[in-house]
């Protein structure tokens, strides 16, 4: 078998310095194959967000190796990481993080704008992405005019509008009620199955983790357990 899409080798991450230093990750090893749907679980403070931020190239590890398609990400500089983010990754946050006073369509177009796509391409792609998350009718509404579930779907549309290899979602359902949460999960499953996007998702709700085919448990900055989930829908 060829190399995995993502490979973490003995990754550590320390916050703060001296007395206040806190080791959030203490040597994480993890391999993720293309097309997987992985849920990351674990108690609060166990380092889930930290590892997601590292995978999303939003942060850099203290030590260890991070290989993305064989590229040593830990050796990339700030701009190269931004370019990798731009080309291959989509990120969804617990807090949605949409631009205020900006229509859903413009929010979704933003990553394409930074890629320098012409206006027609941007409009078409943004509308297509919004249609995929079921918000074609809501393209001209601003976040303030959308419900939490709708905002998170706009955020997902923004993450997938660039056709990323990997979608990283840090507690995407953390701010939503259970019905909206299930809708979001079904959307993620669909993206994973129909588009072949690799999905990595943090959650502490077992109900949501059940949608994933693999569940990785974090405890105290280490991978504690890595299991298959037989209940999940099979791949493709």
């Amino acid at each position, binding site marked *: 078998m060829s190399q995995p899409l993502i490979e973490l080798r003995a990754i550590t991450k320390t916050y703060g310095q001296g007395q206040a230093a806190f080791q959030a990750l203490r040597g994480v090893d993890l391999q993720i194959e293309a097309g997987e749907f992985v849920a990351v679980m674990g108690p609060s403070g166990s380092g889930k967000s930290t590892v997601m931020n590292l995978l999303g190239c939003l942060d850099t590890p203290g030590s260890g190796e991070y290989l993305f398609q064989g590229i040593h990400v830990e050796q990339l500089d700030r701009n190269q990481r931004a370019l990798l983010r731009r080309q291959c990754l989509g990120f969804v946050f617990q807090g949605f*993080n949409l631009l205020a006073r900006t229509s859903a369509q413009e929010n979704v177009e933003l990553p394409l704008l930074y890629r320098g796509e012409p206006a027609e391409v941007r409009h078409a792609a943004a509308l297509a992405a919004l249609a995929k998350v079921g918000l074609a009718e809501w393209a001209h509404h601003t976040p303030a005019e959308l419900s939490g579930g709708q905002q998170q779907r706009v955020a997902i549309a923004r993450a997938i509008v660039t056709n990323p290899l990997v979608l990283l979602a840090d507690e995407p359902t953390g701010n939503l009620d259970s019905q909206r949460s299930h809708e979001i999960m079904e959307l993620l499953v669909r993206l994973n199955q129909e588009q072949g996007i690799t999905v990595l998702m943090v959650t502490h709700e077992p109900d949501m983790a059940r949608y994933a085919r693999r569940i990785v448990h974090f405890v105290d900055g280490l991978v504690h357990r890595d299991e298959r989930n037989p209940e999940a829908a099979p791949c493709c």
Partner: protein
Amino acid sequence: MLLNALLLALREIRRNLLRSFLTVLGIVIGVAAVITMVTLGNGATRMVADQIASLGSNLLMVMPGQRLGPGRDSAGAPKFKIADIEAIEQQVNGLKAVAPVVGSAVTLVAGTQNWSSTVSGTTNDYFVVGNWRLAAGRLFSEDEDRAGKAVCIIGNTVKKELFGNQSPLGSSIRVKTFDCEVIGLLAAKGQGGMGQDQDDTVLMPLRTAQRRLTGTLDIGNVMVSLKDGTNSTVAMAQLRSLLRERRKLADNVDDNFNVMDTKQIAETLSGTIGTMTALLGAVAAVSLLVGGIGIMNIMLVSVTERTREIGIRLAIGALEHEVLLQFLIEAVALSAFGGLVGIALAFVACLGLSALMRMPFLFNPGINLTAFFFSAAIGVIFGFVPARRAARLDPIEALRHE
């Protein structure tokens, strides 16, 4: 890519119209205030300078009285007589003309119109001394001077008030108890250095004024103009010692008359206006600074929101310099726009105000440029610097910013 950043910046301005408007307002007001103050000050200075130039050669003013200033005592001091004038003409060197003046405030009546003005009884030398030209008519004849005939030469304001657009020549004006024939019209001079209307005047022969208005042979004051190249200090000293001698003042007694150099007075005045301009300019500069602080406030208030926004942009793949370029363009566009509006506003204000104050409007490119670049600098510093700090943060930290 530049186009992209421009697009992003303009979108951001449009999206935050209120914030953009407030930001621009501070700059507009600051820039307009500074330019208006300085331009009006320049106009006032130029106006006084023109008037100094119109005074021609140095003009000395001799008045009876102890000293200048508040509470000066002119009542007890002896007045000048015609003999004093003759003595000055003969004994002081380097004089061009010496004009005695007897002034009196009167009401003038012509037909159904009346007007309050000042009559000055004087000689033809007055025209030389005061740099007056005639717009129409003639000067006093020797005969009229000697006999004290009822003739007068009127200023442009008096003519307008009494005769409107008609020619006043040959008409007569009632001055107190007698009728006076108008033989000449002075060319208009406009406002004087202290804002008085120089054209609101009536001139008649000295004798006429003495006999029919004041009823004495006293002379109110004497105006002396110097030939070009005459040292005014020397002339003033000669004049002073001559008058002390004629008034038989002992060495230990103060002068009971005053000799003033009007050019000096005017120059002092213009210096004062210059100081005022500087002062007003400084006040306006403070307002520009306050405008700048207003901008800073607005920018700082929005920096939390903007830091998160920058975090979002970085997280979805914006490069640091792309975010910076967007913010730079936004800041420059806003402050440049504000600066231009301020300049336009100042232009209109200066045009209106200088017309209102009858001052020349001197467009000053220097102050316009300075104010413009200063405002642009304020916008860039207060808008861009916080954004640069945010763009250098890790995306995660920027997103966490509360």
